[in-house]
């Protein structure tokens, strides 16, 4: 080891405290970088597994391919595994006790299919020939059909069609049993008959919608079994997961005349393969911003350590220079310091980061499990690439942090070190303070300001670090808010597990069912909602531009027809909702003066003129509180529309109660009223004999449940006993996935905020205390000429004040600029109003003063304890 490096190493050893602080700082940064990288990969991994367990592992789906095309797919170099599947169709399930599920739905897989699609055997084995079949457990438990392994069943297999006005419409598993007032409104054809032997029983597959009319049964298909004119669906797991796969698949389809290609976007998304370009860009920019934030934070923390270390060593760097050390040797000494610190902190940081994420996941996993008992847990996934990226980013961070100090070190000349007068080269003007300062703050304040002005370099370094802290804190808070908001925007807005829609408008009959259902177990929250589908002509100038545009060609330029969904919440639900919105519940109950809460702000999802999918938070209508919202209904074609009693707007909100689904398409608005008000305004309608009341009014019940599957079964039991028709939708899986996503994002974003806040605080304290420590002599001098401890404190306080003011003066505008920049980046895919996070700004402003003050007082107090003469005598080495 050469002498300069040895020297650097000794210096590090000698200043153990600072070295440890520096190393800790670097460790935190490295750990954070590791954490973010690992979190991303772990999250992706979890989502991959989640999606795979839900919808199977496949990437590209070629639909209806024949043998020749299949051959081409098999031979394609990008195909790793080819899964064959075929929907054979429906067969009546004889003896099904569930009127909503009268069929068996037969699907065929090849061997790969059984391996790669989520098929969970309860007993028996996977089919190995086309004569064998495995059936869903729910056939036995739900349909109460007595089938067991070894039984053979003969099925008449065909397709479902909905017949309406003579038109045949083919139905699939996502369409529930089609009914109308005459009962079942669909037919089942018979295409062929086949006898199967049952070889196994499986769990109800997760891809089977709860409302689908057919129980799943799986049989076997094989390439060799295919006839010349038979087609299958081929799902492919590709070898290389990258952006090229779309192009490749399309080419392959085109070359071989395959008509339909689709992708498992949901899965591919979590491999980072996204076709939607604007969303991808947004993601890239977002993660880029995140990394930049972390790196900037880390650099400001580590940079300070290096800068202070160089300042400390300035004298001996000068000495080295005078005995003939070249610029390069001096500069390299700082880089060597960086290397030493990096080689210690990078491995530890990576381990700490992994450990931290490991522990976090360990703690968070039960939380996830609570929300969703069936889901896979999040496990720690470490790719070599992650580690490599972390190391590269960390090395870059440390290098950048040490670059400026290294340059400063290389410029440290012998003469500066000998004279040590660099700090004292002052002109009067530089330290001139206004008389007002002296007048307002006294000599201590004047001195404080002079102190700051005198030592520009150190002052700037401290200020810089303060500003960075403020900017980091604010930007990160804003960033996490955006993250949550975008997650909310992209979600579907479903806020219930089970929905029940009644087919008939008969309040009394419906209420019996509702009461019955409400007594069931596993209901955590229920909301009964009656909806009146009304309309209203609204002045055009009250409509937002995007709605106006839709009606530009109509002559009714002065008013725009809005559909008004009047939702009556049951009292209990309304009460809590009113509380949430901040409206007096009693006012809503007052039927003589009917008032409503208007949900005027919704998350809109639409395609821009460039064809990009865009998410936006939009106001659907501009109403004022207290305004009357006129209502009317179309009863029939022959009659003119009926005017109903108008509603007074008492609140405008973006909050959505359980059970109400807001859309951004078209001019549709949801308003919330009490049942009393609802009854009042619909009084007239009840008395009339209306042909199709369901198209005007509908009752529904929304449930949040702790065990939605069980609840569904129970409700289905009630459904079977009752003659009152209602539809049951279990949206539990869909909802939970979204809820989980948002919860996870919250947990991690708040964690991130906490971490950044910690770093900012550490940074400020570190900077201030070193800057005070470096001024020991000066303070001792002030005390030696008779500054009292009170005066000293006062001076320190003023300094903190000046620091804080300056930091905020610079920090806030910079933060705003960055926030705005971030906002405009997001604007490509997401639109919502740009708002400043006032709460966080408040916190930042107050904390800056508090932390700076505490840090200064603390370090000042330490200095006060020291003997004046000892300090004065000390040579600054």
């Amino acid at each position, binding site marked *: 080891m050469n002498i300069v490096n040895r020297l650097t190493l000794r210096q590090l050893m000698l200043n153990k405290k600072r070295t440890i602080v520096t190393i800790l700082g670097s460790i935190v940064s490295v750990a954070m970088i590791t954490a973010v990288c690992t979190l991303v990969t772990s999250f992706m991994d979890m989502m991959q597994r989640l999606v795979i367990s839900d919808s199977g592992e496949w990437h590209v789906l070629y639909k209806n391919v024949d043998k020749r095309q299949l051959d081409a797919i098999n031979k394609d170099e990008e195909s790793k595994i080819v899964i064959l599947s075929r929907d054979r169709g429906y067969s009546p399930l004889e003896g099904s006790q569930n009127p909503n599920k009268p069929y068996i739905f037969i699907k065929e897989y090849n061997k790969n299919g059984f391996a790669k699609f989520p098929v969970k055997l309860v007993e028996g084995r996977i089919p190995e020939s086309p004569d064998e079949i495995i059936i869903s457990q729910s056939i036995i438990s739900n349909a109460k059909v007595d089938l067991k392994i070894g039984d053979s069943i003969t099925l008449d297999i065909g397709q479902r069609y909905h017949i309406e006005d003579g038109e045949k419409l083919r139905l699939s598993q996502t369409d529930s049993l089609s009914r109308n007032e005459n009962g079942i409104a669909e037919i089942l054809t018979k295409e062929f008959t086949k006898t199967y032997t049952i070889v196994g029983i499986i769990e109800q597959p997760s891809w089977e919608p709860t409302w689908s009319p057919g129980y799943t049964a799986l049989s076997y298909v094989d390439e060799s079994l295919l006839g010349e004119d038979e087609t299958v669906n081929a799902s492919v797991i590709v070898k290389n997961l990258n952006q090229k796969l779309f192009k490749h698949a399309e080419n392959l389809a085109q070359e071989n005349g395959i008509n339909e290609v689709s992708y498992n976007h949901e899965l591919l998304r979590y491999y980072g393969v996204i076709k939607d370009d604007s969303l991808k860009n947004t993601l890239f920019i977002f993660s880029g911003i995140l990394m930049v934030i972390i790196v900037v934070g880390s650099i400001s923390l580590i940079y300070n350590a290096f800068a202070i270390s160089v300042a400390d060593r300035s004298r001996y760097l000068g000495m080295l220079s*005078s005995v003939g050390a070249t610029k390069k040797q001096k500069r390299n000494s700082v880089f060597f310091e960086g290397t030493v610190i990096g080689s210690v902190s990078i491995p530890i940081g990576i381990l700490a980061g992994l450990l931290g994420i490991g522990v976090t996941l360990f703690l968070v996993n039960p939380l996830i499990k609570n929300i969703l008992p069936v889901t896979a847990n999040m496990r720690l996934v470490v790719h070599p690439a992650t580690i490599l990226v972390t190391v590269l980013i960390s090395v870059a961070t440390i290098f950048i942090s040490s670059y400026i100090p290294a340059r400063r070190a290389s410029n440290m000349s012998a*003469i500066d070190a*000998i004279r040590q007068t660099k700090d004292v080269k002052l002109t009067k003007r530089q330290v001139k303070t206004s008389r007002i300062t002296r007048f307002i703050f006294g000599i201590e304040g004047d001195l404080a300001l002079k102190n700051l002005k005198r030592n520009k370099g150190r002052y700037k370094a401290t200020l810089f670090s303060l500003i960075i802290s403020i900017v980091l804190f604010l930007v990160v808070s804003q960033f996490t808010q955006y993250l949550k908001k975008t997650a909310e925007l992209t979600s579907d807005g479903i806020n219930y597990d089970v929905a029940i829609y009644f087919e008939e408008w008969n309040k009394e009959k419906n209420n019996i069912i509702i009461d019955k259902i409400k007594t069931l177990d596993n209901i955590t929250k229920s909301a009964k909602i009656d909806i009146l589908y009304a309309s209203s002509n609204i002045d055009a100038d009250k409509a937002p531009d995007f709605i106006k545009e839709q009606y530009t060609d109509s002559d009714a330029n002065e008013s725009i027809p809005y559909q008004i969904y009047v939702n009556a919440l049951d009292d209990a639900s309304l009460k809590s909702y009113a509380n949430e919105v901040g409206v007096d519940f009693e006012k809503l109950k007052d039927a003589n003066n009917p008032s409503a809460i208007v949900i005027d702000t919704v998350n809109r999802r639409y395609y821009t003129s460039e064809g990009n999918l865009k998410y936006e938070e939009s106001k659907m209508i501009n109403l004022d509180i207290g305004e009357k919202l006129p209502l009317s209904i179309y009863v029939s074609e022959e009659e003119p529309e009926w005017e109903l009693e108008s509603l007074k707007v008492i609140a405008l909100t973006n909050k959505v109660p359980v059970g109400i689904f807001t859309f951004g398409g078209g001019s549709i608005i949801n308003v919330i009223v009490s049942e009393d008000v609802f009854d009042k305004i619909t009084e007239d309608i009840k008395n009339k004999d209306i042909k199709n009341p369901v198209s005007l009014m509908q009752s529904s019940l929304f449930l949040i449940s702790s065990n939605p599957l069980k609840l569904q079964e129970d409700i289905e039991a009630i459904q079977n006993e009752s003659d009152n028709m209602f539809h049951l939708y279990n949206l539990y899986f869909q909802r939970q996935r979204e809820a989980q996503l948002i919860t996870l994002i919250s947990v991690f974003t708040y964690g991130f905020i906490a971490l950044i806040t910690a770093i900012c605080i550490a940074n400020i304290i570190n900077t201030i205390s070193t800057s005070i420590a470096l001024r020991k002599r000066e303070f001792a001098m002030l005390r030696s000429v008779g500054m009292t401890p009170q005066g000293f404190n006062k001076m320190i306080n003023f300094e903190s004040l000046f620091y804080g003011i300056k930091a905020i003066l610079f920090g806030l505008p910079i933060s705003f600029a960055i926030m705005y920049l971030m906002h405009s980046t997001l604007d490509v895919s997401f639109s919502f109003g740009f708002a400043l996070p006032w709460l966080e700004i408040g916190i930042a402003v107050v904390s800056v003063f508090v932390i700076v003050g505490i840090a200064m007082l603390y370090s000042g107090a330490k200095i006060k304890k020291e003997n004046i003469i000892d300090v004065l005598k000390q040579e600054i080495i």
Partner: protein
Amino acid sequence: MSTIEILRVENLSKIYGKGETAVKALDDVSFTVTKGEFIAVVGPSGSGKSTLLHILGGVDRPTSGRVIIEGTDIYKLDETKLAIFRRRQIGLIYQFYNLIPVLNVKENMTLPLLLDGRTPDEAELTKIVNTLGLSDRLDYLPNQLSGGQQQRVSIGRALISNPAIMLADEPTGNLDSKNSSEIIELLKVFNKKLKQTLIIITHDERIALQADRVMTMKDGRIITDEVIRS
């Protein structure tokens, strides 16, 4: 006494500051030094002695003029070459020793060689160390030494690379009289025995009188320059 010219100073000027506040620290100074000379530079404070020494030592830059050491115009060298030149041809001794606190005596002494990536010659080092009376202090850190000892280390450091010229800026300014005379004695030993050219700045008349040649400076000019022994 030899006649080889070690140092030539030509029209050296140094001006600090600009305009009205400009201070002429050196005003057209010229002289030559031959090998083995022991020169004392005296003068009141602010007369430009230290500036002169720093410029001779290649650590400060003159406003105009040339410094030629063993035929090399040192301010024509770029910064890196000048640093290397310093490490091989110039030995500097300061009033405040300027030792590196984290290096031991041996490392501090051999620093110019170590910076050159060389291994010091043990025999030669032992000789110097013995002369300096530091043989039992080689592993000590500077803060474990007395001021006199520290200054002896810095003499060793200035000497180790066998430089063309040794420059000392008030080497005894921080020492008591006993240590002062010791330091001067040592400098003289090296001057006499090794024919080491030596320029020393001092306030102390008695030290100045031990030199071969005394220059007196005032207001940035050399006002007297006399040989008192040869």
